[in-house]
């Protein structure tokens, strides 16, 4: 919308799963630098599948996706290059249970970016302090609460210094009282100017943080608008229906 550079451009993406299910039916999306895009929609609408195509966790059959100027193709070098620049936070945290919190953070920068370990550890401890759990650095993920684990997962992605962060329902697996601590971290991140794509059901987060809300239904982007407009005056019938359901 502004003149800032394009970070993600998805055009008419179509995906069939091996069992024949048509998950994405020509989905379009553009994300500019510094934008926070929140994707909402009923379950089974293809939100997660869509966001997972951005770092090639899912492949697609038709259409095109360009991330940070690199076109997604089957070329392994392109995929690895994109994954280095795109961080991902999962619903199930997916921390590595056999490594300590600190080792979870330092693993990829040392192996992939070939940075010296001492420097990465210093940065990792800073990041852990930023998400408020630096005193747990030597513990194993299994010893932390869900909210703490998810904050570690965010810090782990940040440690790779990504240009884009993807969040796939980051609070859905959390107990209600732990949700806010994760959302706070995400809000701080957004205020720091990170480009983010977030799949979530948290309306408050979308209202306060999003620069744009996108509604998906049946594998397509149905409506996109600034949050104020989306929540108060939705244009599309599917959007009104969805907002009624989540009350």
């Amino acid at each position, binding site marked *: 919308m502004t003149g800032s550079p394009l970070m993600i451009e998805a055009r008419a993406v179509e995906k069939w799963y091996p069992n024949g299910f048509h998950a994405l039916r020509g989905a379009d999306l553009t994300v500019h630098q510094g934008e926070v895009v929140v994707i909402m929609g009923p379950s089974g609408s293809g939100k997660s599948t869509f966001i997972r195509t951005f770092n090639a966790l899912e492949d697609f059959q038709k259409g095109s996706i360009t991330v940070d100027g690199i076109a997604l193709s089957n070329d392994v070098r392109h995929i690895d290059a994109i994954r280095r620049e795109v961080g991902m936070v999962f619903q199930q945290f*997916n921390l590595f249970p*056999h490594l300590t919190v600190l080792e979870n953070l330092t693993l990829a920068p040392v192996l*992939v970016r070939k940075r010296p370990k001492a420097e990465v550890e210093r940065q990792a401890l800073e990041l852990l302090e930023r998400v408020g759990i630096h005193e747990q650095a030597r513990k194993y993920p299994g010893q932390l609460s869900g909210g703490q684990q998810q904050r570690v997962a965010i810090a782990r992605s940040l440690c*790779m210094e990504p240009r884009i962060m993807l969040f796939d329902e980051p609070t859905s697996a959390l107990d209600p009282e732990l949700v806010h601590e994760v959302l706070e971290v995400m809000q701080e991140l957004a205020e720091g100017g990170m480009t983010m794509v977030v799949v979530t059901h948290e309306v408050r987060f979308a209202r306060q943080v999003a620069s744009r809300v996108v509604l998906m239904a049946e594998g397509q982007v149905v409506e996109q608008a600034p949050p104020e407009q989306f929540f108060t005056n939705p244009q599309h019938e599917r959007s009104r229906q969805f907002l009624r359901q989540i009350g």
Partner: protein
Amino acid sequence: MVPIPQPDSAWRRVRRQLFASRLDGLITVVLLVLLLSAALGIGHWALSQAQWAVIQVNSTLFTLGRYPLEQQWRLWLLTALLAGASGLSWGLLRAEPRAGVNARPWPRNDRIAVLLLLALALLLPAALQLTALIHLRWLALAVLLVLARWAAGRWGPLRGRWRPLVGLLWPVLYLLGMVLIGGGLGLSPVPPGEWGGLLLTLLSASFAMLLCFPLGVLLALGRRSALPLLRWGSVLYIEFIRGAPLITLLFLGQNILGFLLPGGLAPDRVWRAAWVLTFFSAAYVAEAVRAGLVALPPGQLEAARSLGLAMPQALVHVVIPQALRVALPAMVGQFIILLQDTTLLSLIGLLDLLGIARTVMANPAFLGRNAEVYLVLALLFWCCCAALGLGSRALETRLNTSHTPAKA
């Protein structure tokens, strides 16, 4: 279900445990009579009728086979090194502080173990009627082990830097042991055909364990590979090996290489059998590791790949360590079976523990001493397997101290 807390007399406890109902009482009495009569019979036999000379006279044969007498000092040296290394590792493992367990230099179990060890070193050579010189050597070995245990327990915790080197101690010792046993580096060679008894059993088992492990991991990965050729090759190999009994594979292995390679080039019969054991166990280890891979949530690999790790990096640092932890109990079970399977080497004419036992009993002087020999053999194997099981359980608890898997 909750027992009523009340002071229990010994009699009441016995009554509750053994004679809770009329049926329980009957079973108890019948079993006790059976057990007692069997124990009495066997005790009577062991003390008055069994002729243990067959064990006493042939004890060297059972342990070393036909290893040349003038070279046996090499094995004594190796045993001394092993005793020292075991003592060191034992002490260091015990001294290492662990969450929730106070590190003490001599826990009660260790004191009992040391007493048992010393008693064994005193009594066993006496029971075998060995010479005073050998008596002394065994005692010295036991004392060496205990001293090493004591030293490691005393100074081990202070020098934490050196502890990782203990892990290197064993591989180096294994290599040294191979040289000491087989010769080379200036020692006169002793061909594998002359290794025998317990020596051959332990050597072939440890060789197979060492090599079947990486092979099994590769096969398990191959079975889940996306490349059809690799996948089908692995499946075919695993299923063929697991479909046939080890004994046919051993016989095949003895003959197949003779056909493929000219006479002089084929590896020695002992090595050939050890390779068959290795390839055989690799298929089973692969299945255990595969179970570990299946148990791993797919999110783990996705997370690793999202962080930019290349496939081999993700496998080595994220997938395999977790899969192995799940596969550990099954793998140890396989290793125990492997140790027992070395007895099949006797069927292809190698002189492992069982093979030696059979040649000993072929000597007319010892004809009919089956019960004595096989009982001792069973006991020996049981001890080895129990030691393996104990070690694995210690390893499991150590690996599981702090990392319960993340909620998924």
